[in-house]
């Protein structure tokens, strides 16, 4: 019982009351409830934050008294003493605990509680002076950074000398010298720097409360709709040390492998060290599964705790732990970071073991993660073979993941030029500057000779989501001679390279890429749940074995591009554009030949239904490709305006269908505006017994009149980006590739109230048995997907690279309510 009623032992609070005690204390309380070993801690509840804001003059006196009693409890529980000289000093961590973490809020100060006598006492207890000096210095830099707003690196440099001396030979004298150096630097930066642990504790708690009201935190809350009067709690916890006692150490454990998702305890520990040493990589740790002796027993204990915690948190977790004098303590437990592959496997496993529902599983994976799983990567076997064949050229620091293939290019201008020609480039530079950005945007991957994982090149590559390897010290770039040298071998610009941004390896030649079968199958199971939940089908706008629902809307022109027959096709159409009376052997005969052969290549790829969009002369693409486009008469630009071309295409597809014995091929007329137009086209297509007609609606008028088209029950696809473009009066022109990536996708129907109105009008009361799909050539965000599903649309078409995202988002939309139960 406390005087203020605001300070509580975490063992005695309600672990569900996050609003009152903050996330950190609530989490600790739940762990105590599960009988898991956590160092003793207490919490100052959020109400104190509101009081502090009210007074604005330090901590209220009754709160300070309670604080002293609470610290006394920590002392007796831990057998240490705070700010005193009797025995081992008690050090504490001070953490803010708002319901959500936000910028502007003070986060954590560790190792608080040392002064000169304390440092000497702790060094005597653990017989490790460098560790104690390090702990003290870490406290000061953190305290300077978080509480005093002083650059911690500058402080670190200012005390470098005294710190080294104290670590080398710790005496009262060298400790005082170190403390004096710290204080002098802080005073020089205009701060009040107390060396008394109690005053430091008060100042830190005050800083947490004050940070709640910082301009930045207020701004964040305003934009995220978080009330200003919630306040933050402060959790104060005894620290334990991984180098006190015979059996001692620290480590990190994952309840499941964070890179594969496999269900086994994964992680490592460092005997006789602090957790930061493992994180900082300054010492080589031991793998948990290779532990022996007493540690093996501790790891088994940890495995059991991991299972208990997974059931409580219903997720894969990462657990920071410390062993002090033979006793295991859990310091921090939180949902584990994981790779995209692991996220999918873990979601599936947790659902299969009934730890979460299938609906929840859909929300445990992000759209970007799903896209990452189906991004082609180097074949494992091919990597082994390349290594065995000596084609591993260089290894650097992996700075941005991804597997890319391209021609080595040493100059950003030439990389941009290659990309403009449709050739993949790998930009290889000594280092990168802002002047290289256009080359980095154009390249498939970036390799630098110098720099670390936190160089500008790495930051930019991650922002661009491109493979990047930095610090390839063995590569000598010779810009003048346009070549690079590794060892004694020189490679000319243009050499094919395969870059593995995940491992940091660079291989000679083009390594094959594909989808890993296991991961793809796991993902497909999860997405099948999504399909089931959303009752929707997603078609791929290319013939792809993954497109089980169907391939559509596939542009016939794209089929010609894939078959490398576009040039001949364009020449024939151009001949017609120049002279509508051009001879049959220069127009129809050519079109039939190239379209037929291209389709014969395409049809066997997948047996799923195929919807082919007929070429249209009224597009930016046609205008760009055809030299004589301007000679076309206006009426020839209409959907049925050039029968010589349209009829040849239909006839050619019909021949290909017969030659390959293909079923389920539908031809779509683009830009249809009226029922008579559709009927004319249907009659033309029905002239070929195995072909079916359909249409793509590209204008608001066509969509508005959709109900007039549905009685024929022909497949109708709404080309949503085209509808947006025409309604909003945007230029229908293909922008340069880079600019196109930057163009904001239509994320919500609210972006165009008129489009929304037209869709609603069209779909309300449409024939429920009609085949209506929506064609999304650009990736659709969660909001838009939800809106379309809400309008009753259940059939979607998208580019293969976006299909998995789309399936997941549809599933997430329909299970939103259940998953938060």
């Amino acid at each position, binding site marked *: 019982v406390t005087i203020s009623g605001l300070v509580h032992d975490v063992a005695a609070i309600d672990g569900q009351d996050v609003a009152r005690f903050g996330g950190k204390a609530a989490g600790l309380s739940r762990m105590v409830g599960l009988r898991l070993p956590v160092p003793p801690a207490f919490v100052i509840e959020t109400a104190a934050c509101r009081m502090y804001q009210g007074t604005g003059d330090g901590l209220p006196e009754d709160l300070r008294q309670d604080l002293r009693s609470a610290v006394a409890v920590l002392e007796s529980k831990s057998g240490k003493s705070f700010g005193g000289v009797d025995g081992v000093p008690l050090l504490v961590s001070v953490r803010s605990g708002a319901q*959500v*973490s*936000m*910028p*502007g*809020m003070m*986060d954590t100060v560790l190792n608080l509680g040392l002064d000169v006598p304390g440092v000497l006492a702790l060094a005597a207890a653990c017989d490790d002076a460098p560790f104690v000096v390090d702990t003290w210095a870490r406290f000061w830099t953190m305290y300077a*950074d978080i509480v005093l*707003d002083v*650059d*911690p*690196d*500058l402080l670190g*440099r200012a005390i470098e000398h005294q710190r080294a001396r104290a670590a080398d030979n710790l005496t009262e004298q060298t400790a005082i010298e170190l403390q004096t150096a710290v204080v002098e630097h802080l005073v020089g930066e205009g701060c009040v720097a107390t060396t008394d642990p109690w005053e430091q504790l008060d100042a830190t708690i005050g800083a947490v409360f004050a940070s709640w009201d910082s301009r*930045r935190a207020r*701004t*964040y809350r305003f*934009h*995220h709709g978080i009330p200003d009067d919630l306040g933050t709690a402060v959790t104060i916890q005894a620290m334990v040390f991984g180098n006190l006692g015979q059996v001692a150490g620290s480590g990190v454990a994952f309840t499941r492998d964070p890179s594969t998702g496999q269900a086994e305890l994964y992680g490592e520990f460092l005997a006789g060290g602090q957790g930061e040493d493992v994180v900082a990589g300054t010492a080589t740790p031991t793998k948990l599964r290779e532990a022996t002796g007493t540690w093996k027993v501790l790891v088994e204990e940890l495995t059991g705790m991991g299972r208990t915690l997974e059931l409580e948190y219903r997720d894969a977790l990462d657990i920071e732990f410390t062993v002090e004098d033979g006793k295991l303590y859990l310091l921090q437990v939180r949902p584990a*970071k994981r790779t995209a592959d692991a996220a999918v496997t873990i979601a599936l496993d947790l659902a299969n073991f009934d730890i979460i529902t299938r609906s929840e599983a859909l929300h445990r994976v992000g759209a970007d993660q799903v896209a990452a799983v189906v991004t082609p990567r180097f074949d494992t076997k091919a990597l082994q073979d390349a290594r065995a064949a000596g084609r591993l050229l260089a290894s650097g620091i992996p700075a941005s993941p991804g597997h890319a293939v391209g021609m080595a290019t040493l100059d950003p201008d030439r990389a941009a030029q290659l990309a403009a020609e449709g050739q993949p480039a790998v930009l290889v530079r*000594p*280092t990168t*500057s*802002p*002047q290289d*950005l*256009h080359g980095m*945007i154009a390249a498939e991957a970036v390799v630098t000779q*110098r*720099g*670390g*994982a*936190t*160089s*500008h090149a*790495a*930051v*930019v590559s*991650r*922002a*661009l989501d491109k493979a990047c390897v930095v*610090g390839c010290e063995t590569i000598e770039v010779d810009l003048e001679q346009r070549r690079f040298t590794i060892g004694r071998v020189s490679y000319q610009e243009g050499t094919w390279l395969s870059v593995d941004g995940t491992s940091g390896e660079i291989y000679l030649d083009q390594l094959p890429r594909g989808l890993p079968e296991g991961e793809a199958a796991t993902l497909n199971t999860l997405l099948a749940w999504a399909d089931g939940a959303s009752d929707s089908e997603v078609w791929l706008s290319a013939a792809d074995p993954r497109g089980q629902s169907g391939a559509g809307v596939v542009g016939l022109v794209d089929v010609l591009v894939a078959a490398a027959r576009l040039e001949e096709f364009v020449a024939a159409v151009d001949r017609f554009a120049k002279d509508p009376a051009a001879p049959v052997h220069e127009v129809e005969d050519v079109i039939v030949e190239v379209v037929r052969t291209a389709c014969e290549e395409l049809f066997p790829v997948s047996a799923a239904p195929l919807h082919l969009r007929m070429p249209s002369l009224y597009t930016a693409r046609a205008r760009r490709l055809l030299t004589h486009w301007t000679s076309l008469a206006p009426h020839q630009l209409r959907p049925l305006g050039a029968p010589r071309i349209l009829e040849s295409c239909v006839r050619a597809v019909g021949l290909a269908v017969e030659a390959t014995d293909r079923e389920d091929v539908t031809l779509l007329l683009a830009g249809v505006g009226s029922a008579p137009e559709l009927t004319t086209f249907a009659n033309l297509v029905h002239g070929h017994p195995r072909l079916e007609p359909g249409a793509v609606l590209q204008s608001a008028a066509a969509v508005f009149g959709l109900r007039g088209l549905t009685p024929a029950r022909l497949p109708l696809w709404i080309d949503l980006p085209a509808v947006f473009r025409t309604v909003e009066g945007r230029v229908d022109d293909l922008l340069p590739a880079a600019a196109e990536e*930057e163009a904001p996708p239509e994320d919500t129907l609210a972006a165009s109230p008129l489009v929304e109105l037209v869709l609603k009008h069209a779909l309300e009361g449409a024939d429920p048995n009609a085949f209506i799909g929506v064609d999304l050539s650009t990736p659709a965000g969660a909001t838009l997907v939800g809106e379309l599903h809400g309008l009753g649309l259940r059939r979607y078409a998208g580019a293969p690279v976006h299909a998995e995202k789309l399936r997941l988002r549809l599933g997430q939309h329909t299970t939103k309510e259940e998953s938060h139960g």
Partner: protein
Amino acid sequence: MNIPDEEFTVLNAVYLRKMVTVEAITMITGLDQETVAGHATALAGRGLIADVGGGNWMLEQPEGVRGAVDAYGERYADLRGDVEVEAWYQRFESLNAQFLRAISAWQTSGEDEAVLDKLLRLVDRQIKALTAFAATVPRYQRYAERLTAALDQVEAGHADYVTSLSRDSIHTVWFELHEDILTVLGRPRDIAESEQS
């Protein structure tokens, strides 16, 4: 060649971006469009930059690069070797190393808000440092303004203003500032970066 101050800021914008629109120069320099267009024409007259159409200006190779580097040299020769400037630069490098670590941590943490806080505080410190340095190089005040504008966007929930290349994001501005200060001091980037690592 003696290039007046304002005209130099326009040349510098083209130097840092290689190819840039008048709108972007306006944003980088804080000058109005008409002034920018006037200076750009003058610089084209000197053979340093060229109008490549579509409102884009590009640096002439190699005259423009040499011209820009020389102009830096003429302007800032006195600063090179100055003790206070060197101290300021050391502070910049210290902040820069922390900034790149924080921004990398933010990118790889799944854009964690607590990590973002650390990053934004470093930007606060850089803005203070730039404002102090503006007594020595007045045009650096513009970097402080651009960083403040990017901060406002991030705080308003637009996370793309942290690293996006298509915005005047925190990293975009900082990266240019880094290149700028290295050129002011006449230090090639290669050496600066290898010293760091």
